[in-house]
């Protein structure tokens, strides 16, 4: 039972990378289909639609970041892996914001990106505006990332 805390913490790290990564992979894939559709008709729009396609990919990076920080804090990447069950659960809880918000915001951002790609297809001059719509969704992924980071860095100082 002594290592149960470590297991919980590791589950948290894995969940952050897993869910946010799944969300981004699906969303970037869907946006890629839309981008390919536009490029099939007008190859000159490649760079613009590529940027829009990549926007929902950031959640996967945030998830990876949280997974790395958590693993480095709990000793997976070196150092001691001993911790209490309560601390392990705290790490798990700290990873959840980016895991779930990452997953859902990636889907939402993917849909917004697809719509924005449609807008660029119609009027390439609207690229700047088109980028803002999916970028707005990023706010919530960043908020979740912040909460996860703050919580993870606060856990070592807790006496639990």
């Amino acid at each position, binding site marked *: 039972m002594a290592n149960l805390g470590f297991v919980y913490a590791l589950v948290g790290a894995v969940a952050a990378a897993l869910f946010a990564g799944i969300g981004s992979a699906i969303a970037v*894939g869907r946006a890629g289909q839309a*981008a390919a559709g536009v490029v099939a*008709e007008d190859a000159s729009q490649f760079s613009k639609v590529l940027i829009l396609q990549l926007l929902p990919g950031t959640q996967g990076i945030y998830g990876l970041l949280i997974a790395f920080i958590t693993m480095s804090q709990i000793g997976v990447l070196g150092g001691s892996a001993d911790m209490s069950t309560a601390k392990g659960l705290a790490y798990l809880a700290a990873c959840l914001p980016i895991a779930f918000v990452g997953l859902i915001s990636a889907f939402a951002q993917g849909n917004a990106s697809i719509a924005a790609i*449609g807008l660029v*297809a*119609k009027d390439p001059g609207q690229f700047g505006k088109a980028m803002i719509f999916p970028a707005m969704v990023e706010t919530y992924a960043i908020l979740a990332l912040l909460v996860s980071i703050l919580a993870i860095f606060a856990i070592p100082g807790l006496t639990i």
Partner: protein
Amino acid sequence: MSNQYIFAVARIRKKELELLNGDFMEQLLAAPGEEECLQLLYEKGYGNVGQTANELFEEEERRTWSLIGELVPDVKVFDVFRLQNEYHNLKAAIKETCTAGTHPGIYLNGSADPQDLEKILLERDFRKLPEPMQEPAARAMEVLLTLRDGQMCDCIIDRAALDSIRETAKASEGEILPLYGELTVAAADIKIAVRSAKTGKSPEFIKQALAECSTLDLTRLSQVAGAGLEEVISYLKNTEYADCAEEIRKSTAALERWCDNLLIRRIRPQLHNPFGIDPLAAYILARRIESKSLRMILTGKRNGFDEEEIRGRIRETYV
């Protein structure tokens, strides 16, 4: 949410830019003759330079279906759009078979070879026809051969076509295909009621001609159609098709135009829908209605019609 049509809709967004808008239609209307209109269309990328009007429309229809064929895994999802041609060909084949006629150019593009169709009818082997066509074809042939009633024959096949369109559309995915089915049948019912009221058709004939649809009360419509045109108009004023009352009073052409404009208005929101089959269905309909307007303009110019007269017949554009 399905990934199925994301690529297709993105391509269609680009293709929508090539659709003709109201300004271009005005340019065509202002052109002095058919030749000048064709020149403008060639410059716009329509058809191939040197093609006649009919060749141009055939080429454009081929291009539309070739594009759709690239975009969807199975083009059968849009079979509902082909049903009108299929039933038209059936009607033509019945008449050719019963009258032993050979009239070139009466068949439209369809899935069945006209000669095969005629052979099936000649041999009375109706089982070789698609299931929904079997019974109406047998009945229509019977009516034409025994009663020599061409109008009743048309009525049977037209009614079967409408039923088939509505059923196929209802079973289709998305919102636009079922909407197309409903509006096609409702528009046809309105036209039948108006025509019947003008020509004093019997209630039995009207009942037989009207096809089931959910936005019109057929019992009421057949009653008012038997009572007269004003009764038809006053009934329609209480339905969602109230706007057509004025057009009915104007002319049949105005009513036809109103029906197409209604469809265009109902599908126009698909210009902003990035997902699903609906934007593709809307694009096909937009192309079809665009062709109809172009045919009006070219025919009008060929026959020296006045600009205002042609303008009164062209449909609203999708973009």
